[in-house]
């Protein structure tokens, strides 16, 4: 194996490792978000009277979720659900849903 080939292979592995890490992280958030679909629809697109989350403004959604968690926003059930996630996880969920197609 020439040094150039070796370098390319190492670079490919490093690049791959990095993208794998990012990928795993994204897939983890996708799995968490899928847990919301029971009320808010597959990929955040709800049917009926539930709120759709897909494409909603990111900061607004994050604030709502954090307010539910803090108990400062009235709710029937979301204040109990939001407490099950860290602030960072709620922010990641808001980022994920805001990027989905409405």
């Amino acid at each position: 194996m020439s040094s150039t080939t070796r370098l390319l292979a190492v670079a490919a592995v490093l690049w791959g490792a990095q993208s794998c890490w990012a990928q795993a992280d994204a897939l983890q958030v996708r799995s968490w978000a899928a847990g919301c679909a029971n009320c808010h629809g597959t990929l955040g697109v709800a049917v009926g009277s539930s709120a759709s989350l897909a494409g909603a403004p990111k900061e607004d959604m994050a604030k709502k979720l954090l307010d539910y968690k803090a108990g400062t926003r009235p709710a029937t059930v979301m204040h109990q659900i939001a407490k099950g996630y860290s602030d960072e996880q709620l922010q990641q969920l808001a980022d994920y849903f805001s990027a989905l197609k409405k």
Partner: protein
Amino acid sequence: MQRRQLLQTASMGAALGALGLPGKAIGQSGPKVVVVGGGYGGATAAKYVRMWSDYQINVTLVEPNPEFVSCPISNLVLGGSKTMADITSPYDNLSKRHGVNLLRDLVTSIDPDRRIVQLASGGELPYDRLILSPGVDMMMDTLPGMARAGAQDTVLHAWKAGAQTLALRRQLEAMPDGGVYALTVPLAPYRCPPGPYERACQVAHYFSQAKPRSKVLVLDANDDVTSKGPLFKKAWAERYQGIVEYRPKHSLVDVDAVTNTLKFEFSDDVKATVLNVLPAMRAGDIAVKTGLATANKRWCEVDFLTHESKVAKNIHVLGDAVLAAPAMPKSGHMANQHGKTCAAAVVALLSGQAPNSLPIYNNTCYSFVSDKEVVHVASVHRYDAVQKTMLTVPGAGGVSGAANELEGIYAMAWAQNIWADTLA
């Protein structure tokens, strides 16, 4: 070595492509996933394996019923405010929109070594990974009288929504005013912890409207109401005063379907006009037959990161059939969550990637105490790497403050969305 490393680090779609799958087409040579059982767990898993593999993994769903009939909301059919049509959904969107191969058939046996399932129609299906979502079956052998001819046709459980739901409604309609409807509840764990108590409310709602001199008698093997206790008891004491009577610690040992008599371990016999017996339950027959029900010969132990059976490689078990983690209910909502956790893991494993190391999901369960007012219980479940199981997140979850109509609207929205998430 380099090739393997590159494969492992490539993106999901590319990794599946490297397995020899052509683009979007359903390649016959691609990995094969067979899903057994089209309930909340299995149908969800089938759809999400397709979606999350970019439609590159072959998925066949084997289900004997022509349509999906929902257990959640089915108590409202007994109460008279919903019809069978309201709780029935077609399966065909799974094939039309997601390319799932639908097979209306029954799996009669599984060969874990050869990785093949046998079908009642005579054919067989090979699999790379099998997803088993068999629900529960009733342990009728614990009640000798239920083996007598005709007993199971007159004493119904109606705990699998479908023909029995409608048949029990007809029995209630035919019952004269002043009659007694007796519902027995088995020791936990059983499918849908609050379900029996919601059913008591729904039948009482019907009686209060149509047959006000009639009674609902709840005979519970447990020491107390197993879910939403104070909320149900309040509904019985206030809304259904004089109609519902609750008796705990009533362990059913036999049923005489000829004289309509219930026999208990320590209590006097009870005769009633309509008997509704919920026997003890266990994982569906196919799981037991395959040797997967290792917990007390009733429930299947799984790795909660992947839902793979602890005793059979390449077989994943979902839903009510699973030996539940602490405080994890046997519910449709939970089965749907199992379906997605398992689907993500199966796609990862078939792509040579590690499954998600931190599953987090929730359960929200609504119960109708009348035709409009609802109470809920909710919880959030997170994987614990030390105890290797799902645990409820401390401080999260809870119940409704009181029955209310707003949650009645949310409950129906929940139903519409979970039906769509599972089937559409």
